[in-house]
């Protein structure tokens, strides 16, 4: 399996071919289909991350030293970005997740989508993903 760094490089390369925003968004829409479907039992208020306008549901399981994320959103572009985040962070050790700098976001021009001023809840989502990692690290980690 590729490292987090490698996956981020892959994503950056994939996005490099797109000259304009519509292509990038089209690709995100495509990627939204790849999102590992969250079990419907987690699509409740308890698992919701509230942006102002779009809803994001997130769950994290712990499996053999790795955190496995599943998620969903009612907005498609948001879902596409989540699918990138999961591709990078899911199936990693808590320690790796905690320490990762998600530089690919900037590199592919999605930073603004993650700013706290945006309405999609993605920033809160990243925070929540890291929180899960920290929690599992405390519970199962050996430090």
């Amino acid at each position: 399996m590729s490292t987090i760094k490698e996956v981020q490089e892959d994503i950056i390369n994939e996005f490099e071919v797109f000259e304009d925003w519509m292509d990038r968004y089209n690709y995100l829409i495509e990627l939204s289909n790849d999102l590992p479907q969250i079990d419907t039992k987690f699509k409740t208020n308890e698992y919701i991350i509230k942006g102002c306008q779009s809803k994001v549901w997130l769950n994290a399981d712990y499996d053999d030293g790795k955190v496995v994320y599943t998620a969903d959103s009612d907005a498609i572009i948001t879902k596409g970005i989540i699918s990138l985040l999961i591709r990078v962070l899911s199936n990693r050790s808590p320690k790796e997740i905690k320490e990762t700098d998600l530089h690919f976001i900037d590199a592919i021009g999605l930073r603004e989508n993650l700013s706290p001023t945006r309405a999609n809840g993605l920033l809160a989502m990243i925070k929540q993903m890291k929180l899960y990692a920290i929690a599992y690290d405390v519970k199962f980690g050996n430090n």
Partner: protein
Amino acid sequence: MFDIQKVREDFPVLRQIINKKPLVYLDNGATTQKPRCVTDVITDYYLRKNSSIHRGVHFLSSQATVEYEKARETVSQFINAKNKHEVIFTSGTTGSLNMLAFSFGEKYIKEGDEIILSEMEHHANIVPWQLLCERKKAKLKVLPFNDDGELLVDQLEYLITEKTKIISVIHISNVLGTINPIKKIIEIGHSHGIPVCIDTAQSIQHVPIDVQKLDCDFLAFSGHKLYGPTGIGGFYGKEKWLEEMPPYQGGGDMVDEVSFEKTTFNQLPFKFEAGTTNYIGAIAMAEGINYIQGIGLSNIADYEHELLEYGAAKLKEVGGVKIFGNAFARTPIFSFHIENVHPLDTGMIFDKMGIAVRTGTHCAQPIMQHYGVDGMVRASLSFYNTKEEIDYLCTGIEQVKRMFL
């Protein structure tokens, strides 16, 4: 008619390039853009004339005071108030409505009393009354609207009881564009001896308003939606109420004599203007009013009606668009869904095309609840918008449909 191209030249921001596309600014419900004359006044004031008002004896202070009171005169004539001192400068519609809810509430609202709002209100005309109701153990009652976005005014008679103390309604809906029959609402209120407040945040810039003809008791609006600056707004109240109501905020200038034992208050309008007011904001807002009066409010209303008819027809043509609200009388505010597309997705695609619309609940969650949706896409137009921009909005919708459906 006016010359649209000439008008657009007065608004430099309209020439901005956003995401490599010419800006198509359709977010006028949130805030309007400013003609250059407004910023010229602001700059001129700050760099050549600035001085605190309050009856200073020195030249600059005296000049600023005169200009500030001239701005009050401008607003007063604009809404045809009977007395200049019935116009109070506030921080905006929200500030005005909070002032009213507090001051009116302190004087007239007791436990068990009732306040009538409509289901169509902006949060600014809901939350201040809720806070009041909580403090005073009073009750809100709500006048509903039908799916076309028309208030069921006939039901008002049934909502009114002996405990009803005030009615506060939105003039033009910031979501549905509906022009509500406020004259009728005011008449019904008055026939029961109940004062009526109208929220004109979305109307004062679009249709002529005459407070004496309407006979409304209170009125609230924002400068930044009236082609003026942020941080300034207006409140109108009939003298008879303002004389009776206690002050809202305390501070300099709203007082007559102050001691720790006893403080007496200044006369109207100063009683309601505590501290250093936004005098430059007021002067610049007056300039904005002068600007649109130069164009003519009825010219503006006519042209905007043209945009409404053109836009409504076009959006029907494009297909797959659900428009919320279809009132007989309305202004060019289009709130819609592209069917099966999340408003946020629509807004994000529009943004990359240079189209600025608002998405979300538009500070009117009860309207969202009425239609059972989480949010809407809103294109709200002003007199500097064009039919070509409406065409481009439709191109945007086609683009979204291509991408998501």
